[in-house]
């Protein structure tokens, strides 16, 4: 024993390290300190172990151990042929994989789907990795150029005009509906009790419509002349390019500072021209594949990506509208949000698919997939609006006041100060809604769209693969696919949250 009570002390032998009397590290330590350190924990550990035993073990047995991995039809997956109780029947998935991915998309055209998915990945991945440069161009390509290219790739078809024709067409449609409304009023005036009033209003409306007709006449006649020439698309394209570039040049500041805008406008049109030429859009484009033939994972991805990309702006606009000081905007936003939140998605899809065509004029049809897309986007948009509103409410009033005091307008305050903070607050909620949207896309199968789950269920009826475990295998496979996408979104959102909230870590 060293005498440490004496005033001077010099250690003669350095003490060697020795193991702790009770092990607190490693596996044994973990057991002692975390799993079996109290009666409650012992009980919980046992219950947990049992739960794992009864879930993990059977899953692994079903998916891997007892699974059949090779075969050409159902016989391989029957217990009497395999010699054991068969778990997952993977050859069935292998055989049905094209159907699960493409649906009834014609086999010869499936490269178009592959190319679209490849383009999507090639544009999306760099967008998601923060370190990579030129986010603005990347986002522009993904959110604006890609949807158009994807449409012509997946759906096919060409264009018969460009900006000028489209503008003329929209204006003409608008004008036609005005004149049409006027004529309806005139017809009513023949039978109604308020005949003189209706007659006056009807004539006025028709007059306005006719005035607009002559106002847009130069545009429509130019369009008709262009259609007469052999090169209508390119002529229209050139005119549109010149007009848009000129506008960009003037808005960009004219001779002094407008050159940049002119250059980017020019570059954009060159890119569009290349796309039109490459895809042959000026003479019919790719063969048309009706959306009724689309199916499987393709439909799931089209519906969910479109829903995700469009619902967020809708939600932001509605959330801002709900806080607007202008009564009309506020009331509209509230009514819109409450309507969509009060209706089940299934009802929305049913309505869009089966009821809407009854209300629309006879010659006016909207593609079934598009109807479902719009329904889902608006439905999710209403939910996102409430999520965003939660974030907006968390921003102190002083933020807006400070921005206003610096002279920032409402739009700049909102887009630079309020929204960036509000959206960061609600990333978990937003992604929650995205994940729920992704899974809700499976509901489109009830309106005759064959998404991943729909295609899967359709494949169950194939007698060639009818075995006791077919359905279980299929659902397990679909579950794994859905889980991978949802888990991926979840993890990425955590990453984004962590990164964007750098300012909250001190």
């Amino acid at each position: 024993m060293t005498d440490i009570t004496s005033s001077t002390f010099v250690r003669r032998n350095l003490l060697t390290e020795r193991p702790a009397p009770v092990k607190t590290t490693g596996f044994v330590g973990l057991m002692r300190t975390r799993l079996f350190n109290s009666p409650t924990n012992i009980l919980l550990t046992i219950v947990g172990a049992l739960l794992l035993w009864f879930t993990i073990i059977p899953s692994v047995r079903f998916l891997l151990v007892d699974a059949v991995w090779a075969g050409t039809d159902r016989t391989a997956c029957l217990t009497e042929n395999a010699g054991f109780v068969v778990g997952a029947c993977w050859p069935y998935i292998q055989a049905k994989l094209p159907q699960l991915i493409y649906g009834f998309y014609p086999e010869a055209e499936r490269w178009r789907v592959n190319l679209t998915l490849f383009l999507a990945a090639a544009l999306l991945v760099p967008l998601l990795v923060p370190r990579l440069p030129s986010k603005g161009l990347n986002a522009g390509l993904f959110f604006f150029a890609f949807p158009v290219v994807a449409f012509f790739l997946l759906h096919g078809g060409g264009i018969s005009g460009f900006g000028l024709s489209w503008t003329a067409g929209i204006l003409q449609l608008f004008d036609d509906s005005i004149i049409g409304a006027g004529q309806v009023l005139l017809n009513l005036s023949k039978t109604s009790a308020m005949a003189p009033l209706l007659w006056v209003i009807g004539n006025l409306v028709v007059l306005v419509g006719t005035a607009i007709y002559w106002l847009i006449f130069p545009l429509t006649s130019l369009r008709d002349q262009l259609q007469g020439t052999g090169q209508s698309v390119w002529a229209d394209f050139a005119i549109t390019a010149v007009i848009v570039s000129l506008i960009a040049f003037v808005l960009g500041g004219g001779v002094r500072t407008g050159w940049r805008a002119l250059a980017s406008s020019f570059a954009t049109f060159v890119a569009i021209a290349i796309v039109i030429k490459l895809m042959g859009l000026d003479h019919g484009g790719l063969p048309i594949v009706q959306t009724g033939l689309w199916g499987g994972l393709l439909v799931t991805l089209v519906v969910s990506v479109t829903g995700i990309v469009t619902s967020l702006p809708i939600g932001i606009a509605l959330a801002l509208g709900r806080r607007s000081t202008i009564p009309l905007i506020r009331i509209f936003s509230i009514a819109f949000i409450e309507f969509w939140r009060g209706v089940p998605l299934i009802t929305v899809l049913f309505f869009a698919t089966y009821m809407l065509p009854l209300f629309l004029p006879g010659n006016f049809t909207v593609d079934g997939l598009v109807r479902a897309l719009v329904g889902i986007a608006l439905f999710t948009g209403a939910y996102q609006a409430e999520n965003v509103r939660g974030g907006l409410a968390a921003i102190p009033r002083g933020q807006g006041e400070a921005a206003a005091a610096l002279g920032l307008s409402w739009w700049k305050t909102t887009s630079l100060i309020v929204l960036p903070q509000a959206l960061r607050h609600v990333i978990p909620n937003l992604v929650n809604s995205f994940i729920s949207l992704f899974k809700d896309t499976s509901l489109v199968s009830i309106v005759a769209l064959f998404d991943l789950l729909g295609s899967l269920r359709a494949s169950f009826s194939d007698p060639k693969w009818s075995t006791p475990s077919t359905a279980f295998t299929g659902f397990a496979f679909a579950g794994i696919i859905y889980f991978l996408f949802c888990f991926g979104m979840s993890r990425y959102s955590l990453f984004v949250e962590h990164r964007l909230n750098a300012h909250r870590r001190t």
Partner: protein
Amino acid sequence: MSDPIVKISGLNKWYGEFHVLRDIDLEVKKGERIVICGPSGSGKSTLIRCINALEEFQEGEIVVDGIELGPNLKHVDAVRREVGMVFQSFNLFPHLTVLDNCTLAPIWVRNIPKRDAEATAMKFLERVKIPHQANKFPGQMSGGQQQRVAIARALTMNPKVMLFDEPTSALDPEMVKEVLDTMVDLAEEGMTMLVVTHEMGFAREVANRVVFMDAGQIIEANTPNEFFAAPQHARTKLFLSQILR
């Protein structure tokens, strides 16, 4: 130093039925430093918030550097470009770095190229003595540092008038001094300042005039010497006796 840069005449404001500002007349000359004090709820913050139209008012007129601000709040943007403001709770933008806080308005309101805006911002951050913190986020700084950043942020817009709404009330006692020192420096450079504060030492040292408000009206206005040595109104005497105890 003779023409008024801020001229408030006949200003009346109501919150619903509550008459919060009553017949305020006040002229501020270029380069003048005015301290506004008074009990809480006397309308002093509301008054200076009217000057850059953060509050609307129902009667009267405010003219800032020749720009007229009436009850319909026309010319709000023009006035706000002339007037800088510092808040009690700093109101820095927490998601932006200190430097970005200071360059945001010059870039987006005045369309100044980013590089120039950053150079200007660094100049003002040096003036408030925190250039080395430029890349930190506001949440990583002390209250006194945040308030000095807020002053620098307001200065980057080259305002002709600076409004301070109780700039030291939310600070620990130790940090009050660093903010007051910054404000004294600013005053010595000739900035026109309207300061709502209870820091009577600052008022004595810096102010040209002290304005005492109660119940939405100006009770007394005088030079600091006269104001503290010989208050005229009974309400002023009571207030001073309580605050200077």
